[in-house]
């Protein structure tokens, strides 16, 4: 007897025997044929992870990566037919996977790479005109309660490791030998003109951007940034957001007094 539960279970568990109930035209072994399905599933899942995590793969080597991805895929098969985000929880797995305990920064690099995937496919929202932002900033009455909404492709990836430098060293920009992995860094990921960009943020700007994403007002976000990093420069932070057209919406906290509407 064969059933889909048995078939599915055996697909993901190679130690299980081939399900019964198959026949072959020439009497050849059905188990070898069933193994084609097993292989198709596993290779497709490992390939999907390799597509999303090229730097993680480069850091540990292809052979090791594929073995690690296989362990992940067996324990975490996809839950959606939308494969673009498959392995979005790979970083949490990597974090606790004993064989990579000696590469403690690997999980954060995985987080950065997944953020790039989210960013690539994030919703399209037009940026706010520069003049609208400038007008709100120039009006003290508005400024005090001003909230900035950032583009949905924006992700902040904080790390106690040099997550940006580790990633950048695999883009042909810098030499891996010059990277000190133990230097804390925060990366900013966003999409601009159809390209996903990755930049390093100072701790103050990172705090500022994260606070805006947490729906803090502009003054609150600036205070939080200054508290963490006394050298924080609000003008520089705003220039960064405006240069990359990452502000999509303004509110002043009062739904009846929305300067962008």
């Amino acid at each position, binding site marked *: 007897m064969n059933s*889909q*539960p048995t078939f599915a279970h055996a697909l993901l568990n190679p130690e299980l025997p081939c399900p019964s109930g198959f026949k072959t035209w*020439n009497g050849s072994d059905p188990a070898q*044929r069933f193994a084609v399905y097993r292989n198709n599933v596993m290779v497709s899942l490992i390939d999907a992870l390799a597509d999303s995590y090229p730097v993680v793969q480069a850091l540990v080597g292809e052979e090791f990566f594929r073995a690690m991805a296989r362990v992940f895929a067996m324990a975490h098969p*996809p839950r959606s*037919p*939308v494969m673009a985000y498959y392995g979005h929880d790979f970083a949490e797995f990597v974090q606790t996977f004993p064989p990579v305990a000696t590469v403690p920064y690997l999980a954060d690099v995985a987080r950065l790479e997944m953020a790039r995937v989210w960013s690539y*496919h*994030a919703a399209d929202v037009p940026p706010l005109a520069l003049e609208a932002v400038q007008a709100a900033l120039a009006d003290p009455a508005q400024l005090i309660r001003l909230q900035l909404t950032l583009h949905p492709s924006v992700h902040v990836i904080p790390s106690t490791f040099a997550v940006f430098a580790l990633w950048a060293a695999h883009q042909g920009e810098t030499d891996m030998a010059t990277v000190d992995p133990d230097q804390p860094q925060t990366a900013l990921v966003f999409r601009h003109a159809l390209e996903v960009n990755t930049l390093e943020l100072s701790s103050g700007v990172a705090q500022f951007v994260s606070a805006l994403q947490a729906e803090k007002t502009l003054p609150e976000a600036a205070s939080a940034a200054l508290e963490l990093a006394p050298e924080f420069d609000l003008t520089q932070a705003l220039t960064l957001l405006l240069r990359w057209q990452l502000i999509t919406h303004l509110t002043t906290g009062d739904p009846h007094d929305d300067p962008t509407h």
Partner: protein
Amino acid sequence: MSHPIPTTPPAAPAPTLPARAGVGLKPEHFQTILQTRPDIGFFEIHAENYMVPGGPFHHYLTRIREHYALSVHGVGLSIGADAPLDMNHLNALQRLLDKYQPQSFSEHLAWSTHNDVFLNDLLPAPYTPATLQRVCEHIDQTQTHLKRRMLLENPATYVEFAESTMDEASFISEVLRRTGCGLLLDVNNVHVSCTNHGRDAQAYIRALPLAQVAEIHLAGFAQATDTNGDPLLIDSHGAPVAQAVWDLYAHTLALTGPVATLLERDNDIPPWPVLLAEAQMADRQLLALTHPEEALA
């Protein structure tokens, strides 16, 4: 066994793909296609790849759609599954079809989900009355929900089920008769499955309701051997179309007349000119049927 006339009459005269060669649309080729505007009959996308909120996939597909006919080909609906269809997935398909208004929507005679796990492969089902009933219900539901006729693709399989009581061509014929859906005849899958199960590919094709063929797929396969040393072909979509499949395609076209034909390539994707040249080989065969004088010139 009697069955009422299909309960889902296709709405309005359905748009159709041109009887030309088309190519699977890949992100690596987005810009080349827009810059060079190749003379191609249509493009085909995998529906699930475009179930993302925004970004380059939608940007380029929107622009390519302005110039080309489109086929939306699903790989995740799991029509052959024991379990009910995933309504979230059907709704996502509906949104995609509304957005891009494709000339064709197709899915597979296969299953790919179990509970909430998506297995990312097209898995085989036994050809029994129970499977027939379920597949027809799922196709009825899909056509009703999407308010359009769908095409069903014949599978590439590596095992057969002892419990099957119908052969595959009879099973597919009965599904088409009951549901009114069309046939996406994957000629590579016919070659792969018939080789893997010791059947005559030409006889298989003749046993299908060929008047319902609305699209043909061509692809490449990988070759292994089974434990008896007989060939075991694997539907890899990672190689050029084999000569045996081109021959079977010519045989098929002689029976069906010209039909929209997709060159499927999902792995080891070559540069655009290589895919275009392969599509042009199919186009020449189609042209020979419609305009024999030009094809000879």
